[in-house]
């Protein structure tokens, strides 16, 4: 029975390329109006999933529905999708505006002001030849064409690759606005931090299977960070023992190192009692977060 309430729905979706594995029975349900972060290491099957959603490739087994339709018969409904490829390539001597006009025509027309407005926000020169553009500027063309027709569903494969931090912020603002308009966003990434800002839920795919779907708040709590603090004077280890979430604690003279799984606040409070010379907190690592997720799952099963 196909769930028609989901904007993107997959059940036991399988794809084999010759002998290579792509997907191994993936289940997925993205509800209307949410921002869904699709996370996993490279080669986990993220792009394969997206290519199946857009009918570039055909499943070996299972079911996939996008906007309620089988992608195979959904050519017409692709006008309601905005797609950003993971590996964006262009050829020919077009200016940015020529290419965008063509996409606008193919999708039944887009007001030119909307194109100019998006280009302005991303600081993209529409009159420049695409051939001479940097990777970042090409990525901006990709974003403009994905957003410009205000599609019901945005499918974005590694959307922020090649963008500088300022543009990444602008992109996140665009995603939030899309969500505000009731658009659904499906975006893949191999970096948790990239989707954490905007996603409502995060699905984690590994070796072709969905291993977890979490609300982003709960995943954030679980995120494992590496912490390194340099104090001005040696600190007693006792001050830091027994803080919830602190693992692998080591104190050598003035340097404290540990891993932090969960809320940072208790550790920060403990650190603040001493004079801090320098402090380094690494971004939560997706792989570590996975491992901690596995670990917790198993712990629950054993308990």
């Amino acid at each position, binding site marked *: 029975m196909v769930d028609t309430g989901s904007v993107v729905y997959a059940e036991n979706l399988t794809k084999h390329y010759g002998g290579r594995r792509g997907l191994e029975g993936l289940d997925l349900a993205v509800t209307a109006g949410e921002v869904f972060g699709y996370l996993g290491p490279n080669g986990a099957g993220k792009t394969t999933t997206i290519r199946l959603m857009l009918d570039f*490739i055909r499943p070996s087994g299972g079911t996939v529905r996008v906007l309620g339709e089988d992608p195979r018969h959904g050519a017409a409904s692709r006008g309601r999708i905005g797609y950003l490829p993971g590996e964006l390539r262009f050829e020919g001597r077009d200016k940015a505006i020529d290419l965008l006009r063509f996409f606008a025509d193919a999708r039944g027309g887009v007001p030119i002001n909307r194109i100019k407005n998006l280009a302005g926000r991303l600081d993209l020169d529409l009159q420049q030849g695409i051939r001479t553009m940097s990777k970042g500027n090409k990525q901006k063309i990709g974003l403009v064409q994905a957003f410009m027709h205000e599609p019901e569903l945005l499918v974005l494969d590694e959307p922020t690759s090649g963008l500088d931090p300022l543009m990444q912020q602008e992109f996140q603002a665009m995603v939030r606005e899309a969500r505000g308009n009731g658009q659904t966003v499906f975006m893949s990434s191999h970096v948790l931090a990239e989707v954490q800002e905007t996603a409502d839920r995060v699905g984690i795919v590994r070796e072709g299977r969905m291993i977890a779907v979490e609300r982003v708040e709960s995943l954030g709590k679980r995120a494992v960070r590496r912490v390194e603090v340099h104090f001005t004077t040696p600190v007693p280890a006792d001050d830091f023992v027994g803080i919830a979430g602190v693992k692998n604690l080591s104190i050598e003279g003035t340097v404290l190192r540990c891993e932090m799984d969960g809320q940072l606040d208790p550790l920060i409070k403990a650190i603040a009692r001493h004079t801090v010379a320098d402090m380094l907190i690494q971004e939560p690592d997706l792989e570590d977060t996975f491992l901690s997720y596995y670990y917790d799952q198993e712990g629950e099963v054993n308990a």
Partner: protein
Amino acid sequence: MPSLMRRTLREYRRAVIGWAIGIAAFVAIYVGYYAQIKKNPNLVNPDSVPKGMRDFIGVADFSSAVGYLQGSVYGLLGPLLLIMFAAMLGTRGVAGPEESGVLDLLMSNPIGRRRFIAERFSAFAALVIAVGLVPWLLVLGYDNGLDMGISGANVSAASLGLLLLTLVFGTLAFAVGAATGSRSTALAVTGAVAVVTYLIRSLGNVSASVRPLRWLSPFHYYLGGDPLNNGFQVGYLLVMVAIVAALVVSGLVIFERRDLGV
């Protein structure tokens, strides 16, 4: 005009203009040289080419206007140039964008695979026809200007045949490209089929055992009816149209079923 077809025409514009100029120059130089032969027929010694070779190429007398045109524009070099052009353009229909990685973004638009093929093929065919008109019109002009004495209808019959032959091999490249997504495969298959079918027709002229196979060769439907002497062979021309249609449909059927860009 549909947006993808219009865009495809623009995409091919440069390449097509280049080829059209090259083909026009080739025809002008070769056919223009007939003026010299007309003044001095001894420039071509009828016996300099052995009879077996003449039979192989299918030309009885190189110094006659018909023989000269067959030996130059219509017999070997003309088809060779035009088929190279059409095969090159054909591989750019589907295999080109697929190999260069731009097909994803194109197909993410509300353009189904059937429409994609329809618009890409229409643009391709329109340009092959346009380039096929170049030798046609030039030879008509020289036929008049140099008083070659071949009827306009016969020149048109041979030129239409050449155009359709070009379209047959170009469409073969287009279809193999659509079926496989590989430009090199499309070119290799087209080249191999062109050489083999050319040999079948040529050997069929000199060898009775190969002769029955000539029905397998598009070159037979092009020159087998001797259009420069006998005019339009409607049946033969229609066979070439049918081959084109069958190739497009086969390419489409496979393209509709397969995975893209894997």
